């Protein structure tokens, strides 16, 4: 990945007449952080980067737009939004197009083939974070961490993010511009990381999830970061009627998390953001990947791959073999 090329392309795109702004990644404020940034001019594009620390899925900003009432006479700015996507992120964009959450002509997609991102928690265990933002690069089967002027080689296995082990689409499935060479598709680990739980007995599974959901603080980070949770009026927030009480306890937390997983079945594109952002370290990735695997195994369907596909569980034909819609 040529950084110069990336910045040049971004500058070109953002200065286009029909582009409102561009969402990309830039160096964070400390340690291993990388922050999403909204760029509106060529100067901003000079800060952009793409590295193994770019875990954030920027597709969530496509639907996180808030529409403030405009002053009289001012028209809404309907120009396009440009954004950088990795392989998994691009699936989110495709799924949004399938669901009519966004229109294809509203986005300019800059695709970045991705060899895999780092789990910063695992990295921080080996090399504690420092105040100065760090730099990490890809290097074949390894990562290179530039630490205090030294280049430290990190074997992929030791620090790769969990979700990348199961990645089937490292190359963006949709893009207007593709930056860099395509990445070789690895054989994903088959079990989606859920076999460990599937092998537990029902009681063990209950205990496992009870332990985790009891610690959920209902911050809604998982829902807000998810590119596919974009209902303006989330059913899990509603008070009239109240589907899930506002009270935070094991029962309500379980209802919240499971309902969200069900609403994502056949839609979750396994970007792993929910798991990354959870302050209580709840293994939400396992939950959502399990649902995704069920859909894959039983229906042969994968969301976010084909922009012409029909939404899973949301399409019906009169000649459906089942005589009942549900």
């Amino acid at each position, binding site marked *: 990945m040529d950084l110069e090329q990336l910045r040049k392309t971004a500058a070109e795109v953002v200065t286009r007449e029909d582009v409102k702004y561009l969402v990309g990644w830039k160096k964070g404020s400390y340690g291993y952080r990388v922050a999403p940034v909204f760029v509106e001019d060529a100067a901003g594009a000079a800060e952009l980067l793409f590295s193994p620390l770019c875990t954030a899925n920027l597709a969530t900003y496509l639907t996180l737009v808030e529409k403030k009432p405009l002053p009289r006479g001012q028209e809404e700015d309907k120009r396009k939004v440009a954004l950088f996507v990795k392989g998994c992120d691009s699936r989110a964009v495709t799924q949004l197009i399938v669901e009519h959450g966004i229109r294809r002509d509203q986005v300019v997609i800059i695709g970045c083939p991705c060899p895999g991102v780092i789990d910063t928690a695992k990295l921080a265990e080996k090399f504690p974070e420092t105040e100065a933002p760090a730099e990490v690069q890809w290097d074949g089967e390894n990562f290179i961490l530039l630490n205090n002027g030294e280049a430290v080689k990190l074997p992929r296995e030791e620090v790769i993010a969990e979700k990348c082990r199961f990645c089937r689409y490292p190359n963006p499935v949709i893009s207007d511009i593709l930056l860099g060479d395509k990445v070789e598709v690895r054989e994903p680990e088959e079990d989606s990381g859920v076999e460990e739980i599937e092998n537990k007995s029902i009681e063990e599974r209950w205990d496992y999830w009870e332990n985790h959901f009891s610690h959920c603080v209902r*911050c809604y980070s998982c829902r807000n970061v998810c590119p596919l949770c974009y209902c303006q009026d989330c059913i899990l927030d509603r008070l009239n009627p109240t589907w899930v009480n506002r*009270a935070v*306890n094991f029962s309500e937390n379980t209802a919240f998390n499971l309902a969200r997983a069900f609403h994502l079945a056949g839609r979750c594109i396994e970007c792993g953001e929910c798991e990354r952002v959870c302050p209580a370290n709840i293994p939400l990735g396992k939950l959502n990947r399990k649902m995704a695997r069920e859909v894959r195994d039983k229906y042969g369907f994968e969301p976010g791959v084909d922009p012409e596909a029909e939404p899973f569980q949301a399409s019906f034909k009169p000649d459906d073999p089942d005589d009942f819609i549900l």
Partner: protein
Amino acid sequence: MSAMLLNKEKWPDFIGKLTGKKIWAPSGDGEELRFAPVAEGETPQLAFNNTRVPPKNILFPQTETMYRFQLGDLEMEIPQLDKETIILGLRPCDARAISIVEKLFRWDVDDPYYLKRRELVTLVGLACNEPGLNCFCTSVGGGPASTEGLDLLMVDLGDKYLLETITPKGDALVDTVKELLEEADEASQKLKEAAVNEAGEKISRTVDTENVAQGLPELWEDPLWQKVSASCLGCGTCTYLCPTCHCFDIQDETEAFEARRCRMWDSCMFEEYTLHTSGHNPRPTRRERTRNRINHKYSYYVDKFDVIACVGCGRCINLCPVNIDIVEILRQVKEAL
């Protein structure tokens, strides 16, 4: 006010002597620590940086029943709070936060739930020998060994803990374990000072708060608010993990015929926080909400209670999913002023 020493070997005995009270201490493994009740016979370990969730949920539970009632009936049953509690191993920043939030819960009208719990709790703090990467307590009136809000301060001196009592409650606690303690000598005091100074010097992040409280209202329409809030997801992580955040919602929740009115944490970053039933929202976008949050902590609270409602614990910086950094925001505020 006294200073005593406890040999670390005697730590399990120390815990054993604190019977009859509910003890909360940090527990868990890896990064995700939280305050949890110490079980009978268990000995909490105090080697950690700071918990994810601050101990505010012991005094201000995330969900608290204010009163119960039966549907169709008007008898309200208020839960009784009477369990004496000790919070062990909280950091000085979290203790300071408790005394900061207490001002609001005492403002004009007493909040009976919070203040009753506050009365029943003894706060045993642990001074910081190693500050976290994103700690900035010294910039907002705190420090690695600040005693504000604490009843007893413990300082780790290697093989011993130095115990400094600050309030009569601290004295009372030390009294129950005095057989295990020795008088603190000057050498230990010097060790403490050295450790505290070293910790203070290791704090690398700083925030310049001079004139910020007065100046913030002038920046009401400044473009910086749009910039810093652009990537905000509107989740509640920063507010829920903040030791000084205290906003709550009140909801009536029913289960069959039993019902209760309870209060639960709420976040000013949620869209519907100030949403009126009419549909009007005075803070419609994350820009307004971020601006309100920073103003509340660094300006409004200062106007009302003379103290910044931020203790520099760094949790919001560590856990914001999109790296919105309050130190960075304040730097931009200072620059704009």
